[in-house]
């Protein structure tokens, strides 16, 4: 972690910590804490996807499937088999990791378009399975009355408690990712993204790293899925379809593929956009989504995160201008 990231980390930590205090006292944004809980859950997914897209340079259109695998594992294990949610969560992550590994080993030999299509197809298959295995998943009508989370016998019901729990998990994941990025493995990943052949010749086991990151992103998605399940306490396959995979990719794209901060920013922005700000667009929302995706890819390949240094530069310049005057 370099100095900039350390400052950003502390800054964001403070911001996240004081947010409920502010929001809850202003009536018209009091429900923003709820939105932020979902934003936190989606941030976990987008963090994993950002590692995969931005650092390993691979695209996955199957994150919603892993999100779903985690969610359904938690749902089934707790409500059908009576497991403790805290036990179900790692189990779900384990299942997702296994599936990701099985899919990843052959899929990651593929490149670019092929990989995108393969993950897309896989995502749709998982969605079909969730809808078909009625005995386990409840089929299209889904599952209800899934137990919530408890910490030391205390039931987690208040939004603020959820908020702090989710965001501390996000921060742990972020810290983990940052550590990876600024280390031996992270350098290897960035190298793969830039010059795969050279990286391989310099001793980076490219195939192995790609699979590892793919599995890692699946684990993060699955954990997010578990939290989602226990937060909403019901499930249906509609929350894990292709559109969601696209949304996750969009979060990373808008935030900036090359920045973990961007991934979180993208997740938060898009969750707010989808639930609050774009409501006025109603049916036009799908167009807005498409246009955003297109613009991000065409005009802002670095995402919003790439604007930050520019904005800082502009401010710095204007400050020096003012001082000179």
């Amino acid at each position: 972690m370099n100095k900039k990231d350390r400052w950003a980390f502390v800054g964001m930590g403070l911001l996240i910590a004081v947010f409920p205090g502010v929001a809850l006292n202003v009536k018209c944004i009091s429900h923003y804490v709820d939105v932020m809980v979902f934003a936190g859950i989606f941030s976990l997914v987008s963090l994993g996807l950002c590692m995969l897209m931005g650092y390993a340079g691979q695209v996955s259109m199957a994150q919603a499937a892993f999100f779903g695998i985690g969610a359904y594992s938690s749902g089934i294990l707790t409500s059908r088999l009576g497991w403790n949610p805290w036990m179900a969560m790692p189990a779900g992550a384990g299942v997702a990791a296994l599936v990701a590994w099985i899919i990843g080993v052959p899929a990651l030999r593929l490149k670019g378009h092929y990989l995108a299509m393969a993950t897309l197809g896989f995502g749709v298959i998982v969605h079909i399975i969730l809808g078909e295995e009625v005995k386990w998943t409840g089929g299209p009508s889904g599952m209800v009355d899934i137990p919530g989370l408890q910490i030391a016998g205390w039931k987690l019901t208040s939004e603020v408690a959820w908020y702090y729990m989710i965001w501390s998990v996000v921060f742990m994941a972020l810290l983990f990712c940052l550590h990876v990025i600024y280390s031996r493995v992270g350098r290897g990943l960035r190298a793969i993204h830039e010059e795969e052949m050279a990286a391989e010749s310099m001793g980076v086991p490219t195939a192995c790293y790609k699979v590892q990151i793919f599995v890692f992103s699946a684990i993060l998605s699955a954990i997010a899925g578990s939290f989602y399940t226990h937060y909403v306490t019901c499930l249906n396959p509609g929350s894990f379809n292709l559109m969601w995979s696209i949304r996750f990719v969009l979060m990373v794209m808008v935030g900036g593929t090359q920045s973990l901060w961007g991934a979180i920013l993208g997740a938060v922005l898009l969750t707010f956009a989808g639930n609050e700000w774009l409501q006025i667009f109603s049916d036009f929302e799908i167009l807005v989504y498409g246009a955003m995706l297109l613009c991000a890819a065409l005009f802002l390949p670095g995402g919003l995160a790439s604007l930050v240094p520019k904005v800082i530069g502009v401010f710095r310049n204007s400050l020096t201008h003012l001082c000179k005057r």
Partner: protein
Amino acid sequence: MGTDFLQYTITGLTVGVIYAMVAIGYNIIYNVTEIINFAQGEFVMLGGLFAAFFVGTLHLPVFLAFFAAVIATGCVGFAMERFVIRRARNAGVLSLIIITIAVSILLKGSAMLGYGKDPHCLPAFSTRGPIMIAGAVLQPQVLWIFGVSALVVIALSFFFHRSFYGKAMLACADNPIAARMVGIPVRQMVLLAFILSASIGAAAGVIITPISLMDYDRGAMLGLKGFGAAVLGGLGNFYGALLAGCVLGLAESYCAGYLSSGYKDAVALIFLLLALFFKPEGLFGSEAATLKKF
């Protein structure tokens, strides 16, 4: 049992041919640009909806509507290349994937706003009643589907092997830099590829609509299965796509008939994954060198 089998076969071949047409659309664009156009399925949807509009609202005769829809969708393909893909010519693979996905979302969204969410229908091309073959039912429209797609395949063959533009397009596919050096306008060829593949997609959309109706949400699934056919047939391989499309359609239909109808949609996708994982050059593609030839 025999009757059922025949019925499943007819059903399977009907959708299979449609998948094949989608696959051919993928192939044309892939051949010239090495882009996989995720919006391919939306062209099919647009074709069907345009035709429904021309018949339903403008009261054109079906055949005129067919051509009008094909041309209109061709224009969409034109716009997509001219205003989006061309801007992104220096973009990386990841960006291109996102861009074509974005276009597909935009097309789908526009179709939803323009045509509403209800399915639209189209009268059959000929008004004859269904034909019975050994107890199985064959709708005349199915024959139209076979006929039109056969025509498309033959016309494309001629185009690519006989006409100047077709040969030039193949040359671009082989080696764009060399093609540019000998004076082939590569940009124009890319444009042509998009128009052509949009038109073929639209044709598929129009001929299937009398049987299956059409709504704004169909594109993604058709596109995915069509891609399955394209990969299975060897990406870029033209007859391979046709054959693979039929294989997929039949597999789906038999699965629905004899195994589980719920998993029908998964069949084509599982085929796609298996093909990608174990034989990415496709069942009918031979080697990387010949991969891009028709």
